């Protein structure tokens, strides 16, 4: 199991979520340290997205407490969480379909920087334009600068979704399946870009991922979701070797690729 975290950036206690009769999350306890990179795995319907939705305030928990840097944030809406430096990307990318990539990003910067009366200012400052161009370039999607996002290929959409999420300069970033829908030969490249950028800025990252190779490669710590609870929490080796997790999620992934682990 994971070692106790001294001053967690994110702490979750007894988090529950019920949809009518269905229990999507049945008591999650978790402490995330500053700068950690955590992979979240779990079968379809295990509650991973629900967890991300609740932590970022999109859904209200049925029970439990969420604290960020020791401050209770349970039930606060997404816009407040964003202003406090907790951002996310989406399993299904959430973009402004009728705007171009550049417009999406400039608007994201402007919205993040302009609260209150400053919303009446023109978003198109030279500085913001330069930063947006640079942001697109850093993630390797500068070629799509003037394409309306409705016309983008899937991989670019997913990347832009992440770019928009980091526009607000988060301390804590939650990525919901950043590589789903992307050809497997491009996944490492895309994750390299994202994780490299985040590591540079010391951002704490939680990423939901179905591709175990990616989890193995980027996560220092793994949470395995099983039917709305965390079945295992620890290093990659610990979690991938966990019996229940092996049976339900990872399968023989490790056994076939690296024949070592508990019991062998």
């Amino acid at each position, binding site marked *: 199991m994971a070692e106790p975290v001294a001053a967690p950036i994110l702490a979750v206690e007894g988090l529950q979520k019920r949809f009518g009769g269905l229990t999507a999350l049945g008591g999650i306890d978790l402490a995330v340290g500053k700068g950690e990179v955590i992979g979240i795995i779990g079968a379809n319907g295990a509650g991973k997205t629900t967890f991300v939705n609740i932590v970022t305030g999109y859904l209200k928990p049925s029970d439990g407490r969420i604290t960020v840097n020791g401050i209770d944030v349970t039930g606060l809406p*997404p*816009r407040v969480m964003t202003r406090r430096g907790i951002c996310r990307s989406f399993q299904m990318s959430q973009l*402004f*379909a009728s705007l171009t990539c550049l*417009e999406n990003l400039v608007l994201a910067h402007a*919205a993040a920087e*302009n609260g209150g009366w*400053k919303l009446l200012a023109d978003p198109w400052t030279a500085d913001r334009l330069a930063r947006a161009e640079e942001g697109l370039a850093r993630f390797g999607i500068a070629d799509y600068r003037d394409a309306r996002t*409705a016309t983008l290929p899937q991989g670019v959409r997913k990347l832009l979704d992440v770019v928009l999420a980091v526009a607000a300069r988060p301390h804590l970033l939650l990525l919901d399946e950043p590589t789903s829908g992307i050809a497997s030969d491009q996944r490492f490249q895309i994750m390299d870009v994202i994780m490299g950028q985040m590591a540079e800025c010391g951002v704490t990252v939680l990423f939901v991922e179905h591709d175990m190779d990616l989890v193995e490669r980027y996560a220092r710590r793994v949470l395995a979701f099983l039917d709305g609870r965390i079945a295992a929490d620890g290093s990659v080796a610990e979690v991938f070797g966990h019996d229940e997790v092996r049976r339900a999620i990872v399968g023989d992934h490790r056994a076939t690729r690296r024949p070592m682990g508990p019991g062998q």
Partner: protein
Amino acid sequence: MPMPRSTGWLIVIVFGGVALGGLGLPAWMISVGLSAMSQGIVVLGLVVLMRAGLISFGQGLYFGLGGYAVGVLSLEFGITDAFLRVIAAALAAAAVGLLLGCLLRRYRGIFFAMLSLAFSMIFYGLLVKNQNLGSTDGFRVLASTFAGRPPTGGANQLWLFLFACLLSAVCALAVHRYFRSTLGWLATAIRDNETRVEYLGCSVNAAVHLKLVLCSALAGIGGALSAMTVGHIDPAITYWTTSGELVFVAILGGAGSVFAPFLGALVFQVVHTLALAMLPHAWHVILGGVLLASILFMPDGLWSAIARRRERSHG
């Protein structure tokens, strides 16, 4: 991409030109122009909403509020100054917009449209029942004075025309400025994807509320101008068919430019004048027919500017 700054100058030139042209126009064209400008200002407000994907079936409420504010101001306080009238109308309408916005801001689509309609019909009901305000007959609105200058019969309409040009230019400039602001851009963003807007750190409901106040104020100004033009107000200006006409102009004009509402209103007023002469009782049948046809046969037509372009969901 940022909108061209030159549009601002274009607004000044166009309305300046219209004002100059007004000096040589016959009286009936002056009065059509006045009606078009009052309606255009109201529709400008609807366009502010439309950009965010919202449509109101009850804009007659704020339009009527503007008109009644002008009427009550002269009836109760003897104030007939055009500038004061417009300011009072804008404030009254904005205040009601602010209040009703507390409820309306949570709704979108047909709910928003119908709740607006319901509120406008309450106002209509109140006016009809109010004997002090002349019930269904309404009452006469005194001619406007301009900065202390007393009204002078025929020339007054010309003064009003110049005033309307000024007012239209100011409103168009303000809305143009707003379109270019972050808030203005957020309208498109809200129409496309509210979830993302919230995750960018902005309150969608607060933004909608603000748009609502802006569009109510514009409707109030238009209503004031209309009351000053017609010289009479009655509850019919708040009836739902008035709102229907406004929606009609907004849809056919489109949300593309600040000139569209004025052009649309001008065409509307001309056709209205002709149609009333030829088919006095079938006016709304024609209106509804054209609206329906444009929805059915031009799915990508002008009106679709307000349709929500939701992010397609990929796996």
